[in-house]
């Protein structure tokens, strides 16, 4: 999925340390040239700690982490620097709420939320330049993994769905967000 015409610089250490040896070759020659340009060093474990704190999942796949990072850097010339600044903030933060507060203070709130969105949706960016990175591994599916498989995958054999669903384990929706939420969230829908 990576584009081959990358000219952005990406963090050599993140890519080198996070990718399994085999996956490294999937990056393609242009991406490897990008590595040679060098970039601000960001410790791989620190970047993954940032991702875990923001997403609420401790067992994240470092290969996906590296690919999301590469996509951000590919799409934005300032992404590498923003992540370099954001990562040490995560080391100081007790939890995601504290991290977000500190990130906003540093003008990095949008960067943090974009990273969250990328992990949950599997895609970096939007529009025709969006870069899909993961499908079934997108974290959104884990939130309901006890009752729903990612579409295209089966959850069981024929008619598995006739069994009762799992417990909700969350409270019912409340109205507090209704006023602030755009009503027409799905205006692009065109199909029955």
């Amino acid at each position, binding site marked *: 999925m990576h584009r081959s015409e990358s000219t952005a610089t990406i963090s050599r250490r993140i890519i080198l340390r996070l990718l399994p040896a085999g996956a490294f070759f999937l990056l393609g020659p242009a991406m490897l040239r990008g590595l040679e340009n060098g970039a601000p060093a960001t410790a791989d474990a620190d970047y993954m700690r940032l991702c875990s704190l923001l997403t609420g*999942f401790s067992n994240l796949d470092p290969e996906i982490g590296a690919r999301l990072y590469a996509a951000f850097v590919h799409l934005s010339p300032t992404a590498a620097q923003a992540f370099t600044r954001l990562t040490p903030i995560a080391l100081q933060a007790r939890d*995601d709420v504290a991290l977000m507060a500190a990130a906003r203070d540093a003008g990095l709130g949008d960067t943090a*939320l974009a990273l969250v*969105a990328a992990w949950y949706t599997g895609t970096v960016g939007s529009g025709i330049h*969006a870069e899909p990175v993961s499908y079934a591994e997108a974290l*959104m599916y884990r939130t*309901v993994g006890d009752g729903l498989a990612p579409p*295209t995958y089966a959850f069981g054999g024929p008619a598995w769905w006739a069994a009762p669903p799992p417990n909700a384990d969350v409270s019912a929706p409340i109205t507090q967000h209704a006023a602030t939420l755009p009503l*027409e969230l799905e205006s692009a829908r065109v199909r*029955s």
Partner: protein
Amino acid sequence: MSVPTFSGGDADADLVVVGSGVVGALIADQIIGSGRSVLVLEAGPRLDRAQVVENWRDMSFERRVSSDYQGLYPQSPFATAPLNFPPNDYVHLTGKDGGSFSQGYIRAVGGTTWHWAASCWRHLRVDFRMRSTYGVGRDWPITYDDLEPYYCRAEEAMGVSGPNDPARQSPSNRSRPYASDMIPWAYGDTRFAEVVNPHGYRSVPIPQGRTVQPWNGRPACCGNNNCQPICPIGAMYNAVHTVQAAERKGAVVLAESVVYAIDTDANNRVTAVRWYDRERKSHRATGRAFVIACNALETPRLLLIAANAQNPQGIANRSDQVGRNLMDHSGFHCTFLANEPLWLGRGPAQSSCLVGPRDGEFRSQYSANKMILNNISRVGPATQQALKLGLTGTKLKEEIRRRAIHGVDLSISLEPLPESHNRVTLSESRRDGLGLACPDVHYELNDYVHRGYDAAVQQLQHIGSLFGAIEFNVTTALNANNHMMGSTIMGSDPRDSVVDRDCRAHDHANLWLPGGGPMTSASVVNSTLTMAALGLRTADVVQRMLEHA
């Protein structure tokens, strides 16, 4: 076994079929089975299911959550189909409601059954008698009873599971049971019906082209919840299944073969069609009988493109009705969060539907509707919504789960009336890869539809209240449903219709135009089963004609 003959790149067959979707495929399969040679010319390519599945998974989240059901399907450069991300303007839309006619259809072997949801509804008896009963629209020249045996045969050909309890059928006028009983409901369907049915909304099982046991070489449905835009395992009926059956019997199906001309003799019988192959070389297919079944947009486009000296207004178009009376079920969506978990997204994409508002005296005044309880996973929209709230960590996880399992999406269909100003014409400026004119569509809905929308919104508000709905939203812009109908309308008077009661062109004794085009009323239900039934009825007529030829 009778097979087409080829000579110097040209072909001859008893029956030449243009289009390999469900209608063309069913006819081809029957006629080859009766011992006659069959050539099928399909404009688009053959598709590889596994590749299409991968294409879908590789699309961005935004495109998937926005239902881009077109972008994953490879197209031939010589057989463009609509694209939406970004729009390719292949079908140019004008008129007040042009925006509601942005159709998604596939030009490939198997046609648009690649990304349908396999809902196999019948029209009601009264749907054939709209003018006589309600004073609106047109009557068909055939009745429900004329078509009923063909509905049965279409259900059997497509392996339809449906409710065998008459109380849960819509309609219950059936001469035979379903081949397989209803697809079992998930909790969400069952619970939704429990809540709304005491109020007359009549949620019933959707008859659908899949089974929960292996059927006729097709695997059992495993509820992969991806019927649209691609069933990953081939459990959902796809016309490709019928194409392959016809090919095993000796039918020849040529992909990437774009028909662009139709030759007629002194009696205005069709003698041949001409097609471009993938190298843009022209060939000619002669035959005794000709069927054009390219969908209700591409069929009139071809008839108009193929105008010849004898038929200067277009083939089959002495009435000037080719391309007119175009219809699609005008759609909209109602979304909300229920006050109890419904867990939609378990099982196939559509399994229950509210048919209470499908018929009534009100139809003399405004459109009926049906409301499908969409069972496509709500995880994508839930994630989109939760991310907009700026949440992170555990709160985000919980918010996505809450919205995914409480979220409801109803897809509502309204019934347009056939009106001559709604039409397909040929673009004077836009050309496709072969230099053939692209289609223009002009579409303006009668207030009959808009009044039907208003009535449906009131019903939806009531339904929402039964679930303590929050973030209750009804879309205001009507959307397309890819159920194109009416553009080669059926009638007994050649002056105001294109085909007769047998889907035969009034102007050409050996040309049939079955499918959505002849449909004289839209009803509110998905059109495919009616198209298939009309196709099988046509196949009987073609078969008799070939036997006597």
